[in-house]
């Protein structure tokens, strides 16, 4: 599966268009990570635990999107976008979407 933020893949022709595919996941924070984050909140700086957590979640949202695209018979996702939103206190939604296509 080829993922790209471009509207086309240079040098390849799109033979089939399947439309929008999406993948999302909602993650809550881990208690242990939250305690460390509380300490960090005094000093400021990067919250590595959260960075990892959101990275994993984004990976999962991407995998779900890829699964949807694969089911349709696509082999590439164009114009990929990511979005993050806080849906509830302590929980974040990671969302990935793009256009599923088949290229030569």
């Amino acid at each position, binding site marked *: 599966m*080829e*993922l*790209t*933020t*471009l*509207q*086309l*893949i*240079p*040098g390849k022709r799109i033979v089939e268009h399947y439309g929008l595919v999406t993948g999302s996941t909602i993650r809550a*924070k881990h208690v242990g990570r*939250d305690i460390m*984050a*509380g300490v*960090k*909140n*005094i*000093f*400021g*700086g*990067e*919250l590595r635990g*959260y*960075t990892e957590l*959101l*990275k994993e979640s*984004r990976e999962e949202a991407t995998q779900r999107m890829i699964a949807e695209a694969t089911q349709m018979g696509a082999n590439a996702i164009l114009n*990929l*976008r*990511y*979005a*993050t*939103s*806080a849906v509830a*206190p*302590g929980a*974040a939604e990671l969302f990935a979407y793009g256009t599923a296509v088949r290229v030569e």
Partner: protein
Amino acid sequence: MANLDLIVFLSLLLLGYLVGSLLEWRHYRSIQQREAALIHQATIPSEALPVGKYQPIGLATGSVVISVDYFKRFLAGLRNIVGGRITAYETLIDRARREAVLRMKESTPQADMFLNVRIETAAVGSQHLSKRGVACLEVVAYGTAVISQA
């Protein structure tokens, strides 16, 4: 009891100011060094494709979650009363964005260019000046890594 609260508050403020400033200074130094080292990898936020031959090698992402220190949060709280620019938060977001772009570049060292780079910012966790909530924001930078074929 009121005295103790005040002492705790003031020491947190001082600690936040000192450690926060030190961390910020160190982070900026690291950002500047890495940006200089990775200057050959161009990041192009345009949707239009540049002229030339190149081969896409995949999606590159970089993300960072950053939190503001106690002192800055206090300053921002004061600012909220009178309104205006919150310089303390501006440097925070600037650091987070530059760090995210650097991580994207570092994730794909062999790339010559990153096309259609997007930078997304989102507040995660609560943004209130309460004791419990963790005010932090996530920045993610992503783009298509390509290799030039001259």
